[in-house]
């Protein structure tokens, strides 16, 4: 089987990878990057979630990857197809920053924390443990999940690189 070395996930996008290589998304600000990983068969998935809930959607054809409440079920379904077992899945999460600070905080400005809460809640309903996260703060992040090991590396402009 040939494996593409790097699978890219854009904003409001999700994807999966199997075996080797890595899966990456760049420039997470208030968006949250959620990764799911089955360590036994090395199936990895990543979603770049932009908004907490699809209830605000006014569009015709819904982009499932954009909202926490639709992206995670969709990602799970795709991973099921690749043979991942729900009971073996572990989740990691990064992002959900507040990029700009203001005296008066409106709901839109709190979008980062709300995205984090939404993702946590949905992972909780599926009983998938969050084994590591690097969330909040006021800075952007790029994340990359190694398919072979399940290691998530988080990089930021201000704080360098760390592995989860």
């Amino acid at each position, binding site marked *: 089987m040939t494996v593409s070395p790097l699978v890219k996930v*854009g*904003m*409001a*996008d999700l994807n999966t990878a199997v075996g080797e290589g890595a899966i990456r998304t*760049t*420039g*997470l*600000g*208030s*968006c949250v990057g959620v990764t799911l990983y089955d360590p036994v068969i090395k199936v990895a998935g990543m979603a770049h979630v*932009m*908004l907490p809930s699809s209830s*605000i*959607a*006014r*569009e015709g054809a819904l*982009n499932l990857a*954009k909202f926490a409440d639709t992206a995670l079920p969709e990602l799970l379904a795709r991973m099921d197809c690749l043979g991942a077992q729900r009971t073996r899945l572990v989740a990691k999460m990064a992002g959900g*920053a507040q*990029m*700009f*600070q*203001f*005296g*008066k905080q409106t709901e*839109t400005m709190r*979008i980062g924390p709300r995205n984090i809460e939404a993702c946590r809640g949905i992972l909780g309903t599926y009983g998938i443990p969050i084994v590591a996260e690097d969330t909040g703060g*006021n*800075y*952007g*992040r*790029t994340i990359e999940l190694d398919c072979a090991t399940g290691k998530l590396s988080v990089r930021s*402009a*201000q704080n360098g690189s760390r592995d989860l």
Partner: protein
Amino acid sequence: MSEVKQFEPFQMDVLKEVGNIGAGHAATALSKLLDKPIDMRVPTVRIVSFEEISDCLGGAEEIVVAVFLRAEGEAPGNLFLFFTIDSARRLLRQMAGLTAGGEEGFTEMELSALQEIGNILAGSYLTSLSELTRMTLTPSVPSLAIDMAGAILGYGVMEYGASGDHALLIDTSFLNGTEETAGRFFYIPDPTSFEAIFEALGVPTP
């Protein structure tokens, strides 16, 4: 309503003119600050997918200096003033004689000077729009970030998330001298604001 992909060419032209007038006043303000002539490029109105949005600024991981103001009022929206690290340093040198000490980072004083430059320029941008449209547009306090372009723009286009996967940016560069880009304005009206903007300017909406 508010499906930006379906705008007619004449509506796009009107938005271009909005950028022209706003950035024109901002360029004048900058010119006064620096006591030298500042030119600007013809504005572009871009409708970009979320996927490609960071390409406007050189990629999702490109580090940019951004001053952000939220415009509240009859046509809410986001206004960003972007500098590259180099152009921000140049501006500080020209305006305040501040020379950056180290290779990395800015001092507190430099950061607050940049924020104030952003405040003045964005303020004059919004004031001219307000006069043009006779709408009330109140700028928030400016906020500054030096970070990945993707992280900043992702936040800036959030309001478009509910209605689709594209955002509309009114992009105007201004020049230091005749060639070099000194900075860029991105005016991103909320998707629900276009009706009010077009109506205020007497543009028929289909």
